[in-house]
């Protein structure tokens, strides 16, 4: 049976992982390759590496890191951060990444999704959507797509945007709720469920995981295919083998490696 996936996310700057609460106040959580290898050994189903600096100098460091990660770990991994062209994607895939995640550049130029899917295949194109529930200029509350690490609001409504990126050829959605991210109060279940039920591609839920039950909730009520978290794994608040055992005990299909 196809399993639910547990995905640690490693935010990377200068080859090291960092994680901020609500994307500020960065804290160092260690060497990116070593940490990834540890998660793979613990039974993580996939990894996501985000280049949070995404500057020109940082880019070559990041590609070097991608190469080292691909060489070391034997599970799939996705890379993202500052990807805006076919050339960027080509460099990362050639370095050994299995998938790439695009976010702001897809909002800026939605045709990029079509172009990347055509060039590399949908299976390796993940579109990340950062969303926040905000009051619009018409005075109603809506889920609105945000970019630049959640700092910048766009005109796009989240639910139709999720459908659009799928229609344009995205192979997977990485949905981060900026409302729940960093709170440890649980994933945005209702929104995740709506988007996953509408989608025919897998949805990775992100933002808000604080305990093991939150993962259970996002896989059942939230209908997510995968759950992503960062700091709770980096700071050992939840151990991946314990989490997977817990979810399996609650009858969710999990890949048990031990």
């Amino acid at each position, binding site marked *: *049976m*196809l*399993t639910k*996936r547990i995905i640690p996310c490693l935010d990377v700057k200068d080859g090291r992982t960092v994680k901020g609460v609500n994307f500020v106040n960065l804290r160092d959580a260690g060497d990116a390759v070593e940490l990834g290898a540890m998660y*793979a050994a613990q039974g993580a*189903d996939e990894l996501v590496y985000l280049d949070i600096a995404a500057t020109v100098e940082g880019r070559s460091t990041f590609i070097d890191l991608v190469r080292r990660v*691909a*060489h070391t770990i*034997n*599970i*799939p991994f996705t890379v993202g951060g500052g990807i805006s062209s076919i050339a960027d994607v080509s460099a990362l*895939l*050639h*370095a*050994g990444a*299995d998938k790439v995640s695009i976010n702001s550049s897809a909002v800026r130029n939605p045709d990029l999704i079509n172009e990347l899917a055509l060039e*590399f*295949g*949908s*299976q*390796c194109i993940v579109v990340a959507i950062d969303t926040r529930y905000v009051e619009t200029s018409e005075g109603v509350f809506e889920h609105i797509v945000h970019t630049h690490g959640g700092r910048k609001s766009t005109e796009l409504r989240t639910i139709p945007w999720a459908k659009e990126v799928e229609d344009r050829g995205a*192979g*997977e959605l990485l949905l981060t709720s900026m409302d729940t991210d960093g709170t440890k109060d649980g994933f945005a279940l209702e929104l995740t469920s709506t988007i996953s039920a509408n*989608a*025919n*591609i*897998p949805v990775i839920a992100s933002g808000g995981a604080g305990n093991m039950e939150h993962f259970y909730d996002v896989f059942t009520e939230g209908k997510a*295919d*995968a759950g992503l978290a960062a700091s709770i794994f980096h700071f050992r608040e939840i151990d991946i083998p314990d989490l997977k055992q817990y979810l399996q005990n609650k009858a969710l299909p999990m*890949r048990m*490696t031990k």
Partner: protein
Amino acid sequence: MKTVIIKYNAGNVQSVMYALDRIGIDYLYTDNEEEIRSADKVIFPGVGEASTTMSYLKEKGLDKLIPSLTQPVLGTCVGMQLMCRFSEENNTTCMGIFDVDVKRFPATPGIKVPHMGWNNITNYKSALTKDLIDNAYVYFVHSYAAPVCEYTVATCDYINPFSAMLHKDNFHAAQFHCEISGDIGQKILENFLKL
């Protein structure tokens, strides 16, 4: 031992190379007929679309070369599908090593296609699955699959049971990605390299 990875217009070859590096095997990445014929083991990887990859193979004459090989050959993912007779993906006539047609997963309410992620394989009876634990989990990403047939040596279930692995004479194939399927995938690759 000489191991060759067949060079063509498929993605993800880098991951296969890294997987062989982790095992500690030297390899050559080439589309040269002499080099491929003289190899002890041939790996035919693949991520891509059936018709585009198949026309590239034809252009290079690889569509005739691959079926004529006599040493152990391992095709993975699209590599496996191209070794079948036909693929519904853009109605592509493939190499016909395995006399079976690759079909798209049927649209089924509430079930997503592509089949993406970790799924367990069962009923295995291949030299490549020697010493594998039961119900081993491997990583799949595909929208098309070969049905269970006389060449099936491992099955997986998604919507319907389908062929996770095929075997005929010196030809072996896996629908999943051995190179990123954790320790299980590595074991399967090692078993192939030991043939």
